[in-house]
C-alpha cells in the first residue's frame, strides 16, 4: 500500500474579499445579495471608453492584511492584465498582480509539534486582484446567465508555501488565517457569501524525498472541511495512480471539486497557458498609500 509510503505536499491559495464599500476600480457597491447586475457601471461592465480608478481603501486593507501575516510590503507593486475570454469577465482580462505583488514572505503559526516546536506555514506572497462576475448555468435551460455584481470586487490572494503535510494541518492553517483576517477586520471572511475561496495544489512524495510528483489543482471548495476531504480524496487518488502506473511528467490538471454552491462544472476558466497572456502596464498611474510614519507603498496600474 502506497498510502502509508507517501505523504501529501500541499500549498493553498486563499482568495479573500476585502471589506470595502465600493469595488476595486469603480464606485459600485460591493453589497452581497443585490438583484443581478444592479451593482454595475460603465467601468465594471467594460463599456467602450470606460476607465479604472484604483480604490485606495482596498490597498490599505490589503496592506494591513499583509502586515498582519508578517509579510514584507514591497515598495512598489504593479497591476497587470491577465487576458482570457470568458463571459463573466467583461473586459476580456482580469486586473491582477504578477511580477510585483503587494507583499511577499510571511508566515502563519498553526500549532506545535509533540516536542513543542512551532509548526509554521510560510506565505509566499500576497497580491491584489479583482473578482470576475458570476456565470449561472442552472437557472435558464440551454443558456448561461451572467451576473456582474461581483465583477471588480477587490480581493487579496494569499499564497502559501507548499509547507502543508496533512489535511489536518491544512484545516488548521485555514482556520488560523481566517481568524487573523477577522481580527484585522479586513474581510467578512464568509464562504457562504463568496468572500472567501480556497484553491489547493497537491502532490505526493515519500517522506524525506525532494522530488515532487505531478501536481493537481483542486478548486471551488465551499468550506474548510470540504478542503480537508478533498485533500484526503486526492491523496488517495494519486497514491492509487502511482500504484497502477508509472507516473509521467505532465502539466497541471485542474479538478473541479463538487460543491453545492458552484455545482459540478466542466469548464476551465483560465484555459491553457497559451491563451493566457499577461499584459503589463507601460504608462501607469501611481497611488501612494502611507503605511506607518515613514513608510509608504506605491501601487501602479494601467488605465
Amino acid at each position, binding site marked *: 500500500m502506497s498510502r502509508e509510503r507517501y505523504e501529501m505536499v500541499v500549498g493553498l491559495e486563499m482568495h479573500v474579499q476585502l471589506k470595502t464599500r465600493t469595488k476595486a476600480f469603480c464606485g459600485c457597491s460591493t453589497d452581497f445579495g443585490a438583484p443581478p447586475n444592479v451593482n454595475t457601471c*460603465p467601468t465594471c*461592465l*467594460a*463599456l*467602450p*471608453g*470606460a*476607465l*479604472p*480608478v*484604483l480604490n485606495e481603501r482596498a490597498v490599505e486593507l490589503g496592506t494591513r492584511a499583509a502586515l498582519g501575516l508578517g509579510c514584507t510590503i514591497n515598495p512598489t507593486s504593479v497591476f497587470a*492584465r491577465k*487576458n482570457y*475570454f470568458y*463571459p463573466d469577465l*467583461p*473586459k*476580456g*482580462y482580469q486586473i491582477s498582480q504578477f511580477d510585483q505583488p503587494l507583499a511577499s514572505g510571511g508566515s502563519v503559526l498553526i500549532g506545535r509539534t509533540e516536542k513543542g516546536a512551532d509548526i509554521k506555514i510560510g506565505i509566499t506572497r500576497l497580491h491584489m486582484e479583482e473578482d470576475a462576475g458570476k456565470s449561472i448555468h442552472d437557472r435558464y435551460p440551454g443558456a448561461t446567465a*451572467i451576473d456582474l455584481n461581483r465583477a471588480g470586487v477587490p480581493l487579496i490572494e494569499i499564497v502559501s508555501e507548499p509547507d502543508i503535510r496533512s489535511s489536518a494541518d491544512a484545516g488548521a492553517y485555514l482556520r488560523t488565517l481566517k481568524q487573523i483576517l477577522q481580527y484585522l477586520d479586513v474581510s467578512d471572511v464568509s464562504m457562504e457569501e463568496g468572500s472567501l475561496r480556497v484553491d489547493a495544489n497537491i502532490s505526493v512524495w515519500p517522506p524525506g524525498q525532494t522530488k515532487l510528483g505531478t501536481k493537481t489543482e483542486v478548486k471551488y471548495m465551499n468550506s474548510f472541511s470540504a478542503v480537508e476531504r478533498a485533500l484526503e480524496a486526492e491523496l488517495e487518488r494519486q497514491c492509487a495512480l502511482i500504484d497502477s502506473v508509472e507516473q509521467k511528467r505532465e502539466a497541471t490538471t485542474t479538478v473541479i471539486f463538487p460543491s453545492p454552491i458552484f455545482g459540478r462544472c466542466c469548464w476551465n476558466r483560465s484555459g491553457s*497557458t*497559451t491563451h493566457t*497572456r*499577461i*499584459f503589463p*502596464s*507601460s*504608462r501607469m*498611474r501611481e*497611488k501612494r498609500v502611507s503605511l506607518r510614519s515613514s513608510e509608504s507603498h506605491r501601487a501602479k*496600474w*494601467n*488605465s
Partner: protein
Amino acid sequence: MSVENFTMLGAADIASAVRAGDASPTEMVRASFNRARDIGAGHDELNIFLHSDQEASEHEAKSMQERLQSAADIGILAGVPVAVKDNIATLGLPTTCGSKILAGYVSPYEATAITRLRANGALVVAKTNMDEFAMGSSTENSAFGPTRNPHDVRCVPGGSSGGSAAAVAAGITPIALGSETGGSVRQPAAFCGVVGVKPTYGRVSRYGLVAFASSLDQIGVVGRTVDDAALGLESIAGFDKMDSTSSDAEVPVYRLSALGKPAPEVGAPDTEAMRIGRNPVALPPPPSAKTLEGIVIGKPREYFPDTLDTNIKDLCERALDRFRSMGATVRDISLPRSPLAIPVYYILAPAEASSNLARFDGVRYGLRVDSGKGLKAMYESTRSQGFGPEVTRRILLGTYVLSAGYYDAYYKKAQAVRTLIADDFRAVFTSGVNAIFTPTTPTPAFPVGAISDPYEMYLNDIFTVTANLAGVPAISVPIGRMRRLPVGGQVITAHFDEYTMFRVAYALEASLGQEAHQ
C-alpha cells in the same frame, strides 16, 4: 456678423455673437447642417458623417436659446457647432468607432470631454467617420466607407480622424474633436489644410474615449484656425477624477481671443475660401520682428532627410524663414532615435490594442454572431465578422508580441526604445530649445486606394508618431500647398507647454496669412 458667412467664422466669432444676442444657436446649427448638405457630406458623397440628427440638434439649440434669455452664461463655445470623432462616447448619437462590431451602439454615458464641451455651450451636431478603432492613416479602414478629402474628392482626408478634419475643412463646423494614438489628428489636419492639435498625454481626460493603446491615446482638436483649436482644447482640458492618467497641471488660457484680439471684421465672402471652409478673417495681430523674440526653434535633421520631397522641404524652409523674421533663432538639432519610432509604435500600439479590444466579445453589447455551436464559436464568428482586416492584423500582431517567449524580444525591447525616444526630446528641450519644427507628413494627401501595402501606409506617420511615444504636445498648421493640395508644418514643445506651442503656431499662421493656403 452674418450667418451667410458661416463657413468663414471662427468659434470665437460665433460664441461672441451668440453671447451678445446677435446670433442664435438655432441659426448656427441650421447653418452647419445646410453647409453639410450643400457641400455633400452625405454617405454617397464626401462621407464625413456617420451619425447626425438635425432635429435633436435644433431642439438642443432651442433649449440653449431659452437659457440665454434667462441671462445664464453659456460659456466660451456658446452656440458653436462641433463634430466629434465616432470613438468618443456621446449621449444621443451612436458611438461605433467606424466598426461593424459596434454598429448601432449608443453609449449610456458620455465622455468627459463631451460633457465639458457642452458645459461650455458647444452643440454636438455629428459623429464623424474614422478608420475602424482609429487604426489607419486614410479613413479608408472605416467599415462604413472612406471619407473623401474636400480639397480633392479623389484623395483621402488622412486618418484616423479623417471625418473630423474633413468636417472642418468643408466648413461644416469650426471645431471638431479627434483622437490620436500615432498622429491621427495632425496628419489628417495637414491633408485637409486645417489646424490639428494633440495635447500632452494627460492634458485631456480619456474617460469615454474608446481605448486603442491606452498609454498613447489622447483626444485632440481640429480647428479652422489656431484660435479655434486653442479654444477647443481649452474647453476640454484639465484633471478628471474618472481618468487617473489625467494631469492636475493648471490649464492656461490658450485662445488668442482672450489675449485682447480685436473683434474680427467679416469681409466679403471669398468663393474659394467658402468652398473649402477656410476662415481668412480670424487672423491674429500682424506679426512683427519681436513676435517670437527669445524663442529658439529646433530643426531636427532626422525629420529633414535627403529623401524628403523638395516641395515640402521648400515650404518648411519658408516657414523657418518666417520664424527668423519674427525674431526667433533656428537651431539645427538631432533626435537620433526618432527613426526607430515606426517599428516601436507598431509593436507597442498593437500589443495594447490586443488587450483593449478584448471586450468586444459579443456578450454584452454590439454585434453577436451566434450559430449555436457554443461559446468559442460565438467568440470566433463575432470577432472575425465584426472586425475589419486592419484591426484583425493588429490584434494578431499584438497577441503575438505579448505571447510567452516573444515578450522580451519585442515588447520589452520596444518599451526600452520608447524611453530613449522620449529622452531625446527631453534632452533637446532642456538644452534651451523652446519648440521643434518639422513637416507634419512626408507627402500631401494621396488618392483613395493608392496605398495597399500596410507598411507603406504606416510610414505616413513617420514625423508625427514620436510625439505620441514621448507624450509631448504637437500641432499641425497649414504652411502652403503642393500640386494644389495642402501641406502642414508641425510644432512640438515640451510636456505641458501647449502655451508656447500655440504661441509659435499663432505667429506662423499670422505671418503666412493666405500664403498658407496657396
